[in-house]
């Protein structure tokens, strides 16, 4: 921001005055700026020089990505050892920008999120006030601080008004949307849009995403938001009451069969997305067998959809588990792709017309669950069959 302002200033001065001295200063400034700019754009590595007043020698400092939910370090970008109140990191920030945290081996507290990019950055602070630190040289970090401040002020306002949840939701949408629209080109703005998922409608989220400037949209936060919105859109069509798209399976005899036609033979069919190498899938088979035996004559069927790559491994598991229902192989993962299934086992109950009645899809967005396992499966089957 500072650099931008400076250049605009010199440019206008240049145009207005057109005096030799200014011209020279301007050219020098412009040259310096272009060098800096080129330098900044071509940087593929970062440096973070840190100075923490009062920091003892020999303290181990970790630069980690993602705030771990447990004590383990995830994606450690670097480890440094302090000397003369200083420590430094260098390396490459994957995807050019991201949130990182500093932790030491002598204090439990971690710093707040630091938005690092492949550039030269500096970190300042006092050991007495650790983990409060100041990061210099990262434009998106300044934006992050701005967003935190905005959120804090919003929270304070809501608290003062003693606002209810509905009011808070509306306020959040208003405050964030106006922020987004005023910062369409900033790298971190897609992340603010991300915050509105669940607060505003999908169509509105998309409109905000499309109104982003090219840099923001193609930055790493923009790209991950784009992917998330795309997969949300896909998932929105997969819900209780909607009809599933059809796809084919290779049956044990080598013939192809469509899942809709296979499911049409029962009143309700459980689609079981599994594979021979998946222990939690196989562990559930005794329960599925029990349910199948109890309710098959009442109209309950199961269709095993395996993502095994090796046909022999699949057939071996079929023999071992001796499951009485139909099985098909989905080597190309057509089913997993349609339903955005990222983990198995995943389950989906459909009726004879392919309408979804119940779901347990394990995808990063939907999250895990045990919606159709164990006793819950038996209860669901009984309820759906009016037993």
């Amino acid at each position, binding site marked *: 921001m500072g650099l931008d302002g400076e250049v605009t200033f010199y440019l206008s001065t240049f145009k207005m005055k057109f005096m030799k001295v200014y011209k020279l200063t301007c050219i020098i400034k412009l040259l310096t700026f272009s060098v800096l700019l080129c330098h900044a754009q071509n940087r593929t590595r970062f440096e973070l020089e840190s100075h923490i007043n009062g920091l003892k020698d020999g303290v181990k400092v970790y630069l980690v990505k993602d705030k771990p*939910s447990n004590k*383990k370090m*995830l994606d450690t970008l670097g480890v440094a050892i302090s000397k003369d109140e200083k420590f430094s990191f260098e390396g490459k920030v994957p995807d050019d920008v991201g949130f990182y945290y500093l932790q030491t081996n002598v204090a439990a507290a971690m710093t707040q999120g630091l938005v690092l990019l492949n550039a030269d950055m500096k970190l300042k602070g006092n050991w007495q006030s650790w983990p409060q630190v100041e990061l210099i040289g990262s434009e998106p970090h300044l934006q992050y601080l701005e967003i935190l401040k905005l959120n804090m002020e919003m929270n304070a306002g809501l608290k003062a008004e003693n606002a209810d949840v509905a009011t*808070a939701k509306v306020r959040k949408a208003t405050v964030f949307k106006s922020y987004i629209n005023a910062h369409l080109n900033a790298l971190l703005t897609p992340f603010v849009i*991300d915050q509105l998922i669940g607060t505003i409608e999908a169509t509105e989220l998309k409109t905000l995403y499309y109104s982003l400037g090219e840099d923001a949209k193609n930055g790493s936060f923009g790209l991950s938001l784009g992917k998330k919105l795309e997969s949300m859109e896909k998932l929105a069509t997969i819900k209780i009451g909607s009809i599933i798209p059809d796809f084919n399976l290779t049956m044990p005899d080598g013939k192809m069969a469509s899942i809709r036609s296979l499911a049409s033979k029962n009143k309700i069919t459980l689609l079981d997305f599994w*594979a021979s*190498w998946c222990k939690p899938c196989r562990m559930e088979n005794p329960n599925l067998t029990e349910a199948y035996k109890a309710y098959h004559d009442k109209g309950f069927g199961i269709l095993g959809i395996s993502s095994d790559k090796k046909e022999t491994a699949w057939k071996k598991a079929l023999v071992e588990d001796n499951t009485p229902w139909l099985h098909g192989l989905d080597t190309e993962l057509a089913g997993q792709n349609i339903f955005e299934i990222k983990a198995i086992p995943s389950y989906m109950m459909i009726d004879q017309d392919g309408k979804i009645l119940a779901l347990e899809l394990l995808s990063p967005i939907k999250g895990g669950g045990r919606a159709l396992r164990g006793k819950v499966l038996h209860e669901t089957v009984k309820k759906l069959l009016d037993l």
Partner: protein
Amino acid sequence: MRTLLLTLICIVLASLAHAQIVKPASWNFTTKKVKTDLYELHMIANINEGWATYSQWTPEGGPEPTVIRFDKNTNFLLGGKAKEVGIVKKKHEDVFDVDVHYFRHQADFVQLVKLKNVKGDRKIKGKINYMVCDKSQCITDEVEFKVELK
């Protein structure tokens, strides 16, 4: 009510910093110089608590082994398959009736790479297919890497 509401809002923003898609494992790639023309490529899987990833040599019939593939490059000589550093746990799984070889927390796959020409190409590329499981689910994933040996 008020406390509840504020907690709610604060949680949303606290997660702003790390609200990205849940991944039970993440990978780091680093290199270490052994000699002028010999390098170690460390492919490190950091595995979340409760999850496991599997050895390249876990026996057939159980979970899928980790598979590391390198793109062809005439400047490199690879010293066999990657070594596995870290605690390889072995457990007999009745479901599969095999001994499963797996890692928790961290697995370091170390590939020795010899440069034919020290002035030549140093970018080593490839991909890793691996799976991670916890008690209730399994995920298969692929990670691509491009690392400069230095």
